[in-house]
């Protein structure tokens, strides 16, 4: 623990925080709800980002309902976790959205899922569907994972005229819903309604059949594009909570596969962006190049997607000489073809003109909303979890973090383009330095009621998993996907923009709705224009 961290802890103590636990990468403090706002303000104004907050029903172990506020101090690489406990009879916590605008969603989610009332702000349902009965909170421990409460339908009819976009995404085929309020061609305001495909994965993990060992496979299915990020982040959280030392070789293999995943994800996105701008030739070539990466992923892991090689304590697949050779050959080919394609793509007038100056997210707005990943880096925020909180083998490699200050769609394109090239260099270095030894620990044990925060730089930005261990399985497993943090920024990007630029702008955050949503909502309803069409089934990101 460095001096600056101890200084910060002293300051937080002075403001009313009580230190519960100090670990290498995390500091846990208990805070009374009356002191929460001043502590949150102190943290946020000193440059901490809000990673997420998590409602936890701790009545079985501590007799309270709690909200954990996870703040990340990027410069120090330390997470500060504030736990605010309240009793069930008086479950009220004041809002921190004025001090920390990024807390908007996670406060509402904790209210929906755990039933802690948030005071001092307008509240609405975020995650739970409209027809979910009042007073039933799915993440309370006395709510059975397989319970299906009776539904009740409420209807509200507002006055304004809206332009509905969705619930199917204009770019990716995923259910979501944007209401764009327009004045002529100009977007005046945006209302987002998501969580149509919330699958209740956090609750499902509480079902009897899931143990520590099986959840990596469940976590991997949170997202169809960056699934390996989620399984890695889950195993990292458990390993940190339990103090499991993972063999170095396994950490290298995980890092290599994570970068392979980033390559395919960025190539996919680049293709989608070209398609949205009416440049389908670019789309086809981007995906053609991506195919080399997909085949490589299958050769390394056994599957094109949902690789399934992460287990607690290591990985299930080793790399041999043939595989390493194949990695280098594929990367050389991908790099050569990618550089050529990008050169052509960026010289196409419709791409350059339509991407530059549209969907601008200013640095201050990006900071206030704690946006992550390429969106943050395109708006001048130097944030990359691989640098700020080095994990796995990222300490062993050198790479550049692309940074742009324009904050427009073109900047977000360019950040991703450069990241593809950086990823290729990272993998080469990892292959070169790959140490020998085993790829998994022989055995491990997870003591109950330990906590850990794990974060990984996904292609879309920082992915956060927070875990409280239990007996044989996690007591609470909280997932915060990157898109969760970036969607609120769309409002800032779209306001004042032209309607025609909306699809590209929405796509420019590389949204992944299934990652963000985690509960099943079915039923198809039509009615007034405001009543949301809730799409059926569970959709995954396009593979």
């Amino acid at each position, binding site marked *: 623990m460095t001096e600056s961290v101890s200084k910060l802890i002293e300051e937080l103590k002075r403001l009313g925080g009580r230190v519960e636990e100090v670990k290498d990468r995390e500091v846990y403090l208990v805070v009374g709800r009356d002191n929460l706002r001043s502590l949150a303000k102190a943290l946020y104004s000193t440059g901490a980002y809000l990673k997420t907050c998590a409602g936890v029903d701790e009545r079985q172990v501590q007799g309270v309902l709690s909200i954990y506020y996870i703040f990340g101090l990027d410069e120090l690489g330390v997470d500060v976790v504030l736990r605010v406990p309240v009793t069930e009879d008086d479950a009220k916590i004041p809002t921190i959205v004025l001090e920390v605008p990024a807390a908007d969603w996670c406060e509402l989610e904790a209210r929906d899922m755990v039933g802690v009332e948030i005071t001092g702000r307008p509240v609405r349902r975020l995650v739970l569907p409209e027809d979910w009965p009042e007073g039933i909170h799915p993440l309370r421990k006395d709510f059975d994972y397989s319970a299906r409460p009776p539904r009740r339908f409420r209807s509200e009819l507002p006055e304004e005229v809206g332009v509905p976009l969705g619930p199917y995404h204009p770019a990716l085929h995923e259910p979501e819903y944007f209401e764009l309020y327009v004045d002529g061609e100009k977007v005046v305001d945006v209302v987002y309604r998501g969580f149509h495909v919330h699958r209740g994965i956090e609750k499902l993990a509480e079902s009897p059949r*899931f143990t520590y060992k*099986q959840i990596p496979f469940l976590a991997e299915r949170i997202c169809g594009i960056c699934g390996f990020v989620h399984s890695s982040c889950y195993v990292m959280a458990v390993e940190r909570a339990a103090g499991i030392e993972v063999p170095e070789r396994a950490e290298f293999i995980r890092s290599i596969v994570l970068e392979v995943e980033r390559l395919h994800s960025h190539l996919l996105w680049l293709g989608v962006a070209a398609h949205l701008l009416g440049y389908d030739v670019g789309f086809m070539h981007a995906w053609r190049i991506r195919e080399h990466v997909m085949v490589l992923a*299958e050769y390394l892991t056994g599957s094109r997607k949902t690789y399934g090689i992460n287990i607690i304590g290591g990985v299930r697949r080793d790399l041999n000489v043939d595989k390493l050779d194949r990695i280098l050959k594929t990367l050389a080919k991908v790099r050569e073809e990618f550089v050529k394609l990008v050169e052509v793509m960026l010289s196409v007038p419709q791409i350059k003109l339509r991407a530059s100056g549209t969907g601008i997210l200013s640095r201050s707005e990006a900071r206030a909303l704690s946006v992550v990943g390429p969106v943050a880096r395109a708006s001048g925020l130097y944030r990359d979890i691989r640098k700020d909180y080095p994990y796995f083998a990222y300490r062993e490699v050198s790479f550049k973090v692309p940074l742009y200050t324009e904050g427009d769609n073109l900047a977000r394109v360019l950040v991703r383009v450069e990241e593809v090239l950086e990823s290729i260099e990272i993998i080469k270095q990892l292959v070169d330095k790959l140490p020998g030894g085993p790829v998994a620990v022989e055995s491990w044990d997870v003591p109950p009621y330990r906590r850990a925060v794990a974060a990984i730089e996904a292609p879309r930005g920082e992915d956060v998993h927070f875990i409280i261990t239990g007996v044989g399985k996690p007591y609470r497993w909280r997932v915060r996907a990157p898109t969760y943090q970036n969607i609120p920024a769309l409002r800032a990007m779209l306001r004042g923009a032209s309607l025609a630029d909306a699809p590209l702008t929405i796509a420019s955050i590389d949204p992944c709705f299934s990652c963000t949503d985690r509960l099943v909502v079915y039923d198809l309803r039509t009615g007034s224009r405001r009543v949301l069409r809730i799409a059926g089934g569970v959709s995954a990101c396009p593979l």
Partner: protein
Amino acid sequence: MSLVKILEIALRTGRVTRRYPVEEPLLTPEFRGSIEVDPSKCWGCGACTKVCPSNALTLTPSGKGLVLEYFVGRCVFCGMCAEVCPAKAITVTKKFELASKNLRDLRSRVVHEVLRCSVCGAPITAEAEVRAVVKVSPITEEYVALCPRCRKERFTKSVALRIGASSGPS
């Protein structure tokens, strides 16, 4: 200008799409497809069902036997079952063309005979598992053929006799 350049790339690359199913599908040697359970090797121990993340493998009593069922419709092709199988009865194949008009085709079963307690007749476990256990551990077949309750009873009786206490009202 960009048109000429992209045309050049396209012409040099040529056709990349494989004419599947006329041509062979592109599969790497590491590909994991559906699994196959060898009934002659399977013990019916159920280790695979415990590790299966998606409930594709289930072990349920059915009639007089014990049925290990593999439902490929739920399978996520992780291959964890093959890794834990103590009998090496599960192989991960490269099969991926699994669609069928008949739901039955998606289920395959291994039916096991159940060993019953030689004293009270209660079902113990799959016969194949008992045979495998007897092979590797130094216990008698007579002892194995007792259900856990009868074993406990026999044990308490023998202890009681040894310490000279009465074995209770009989």
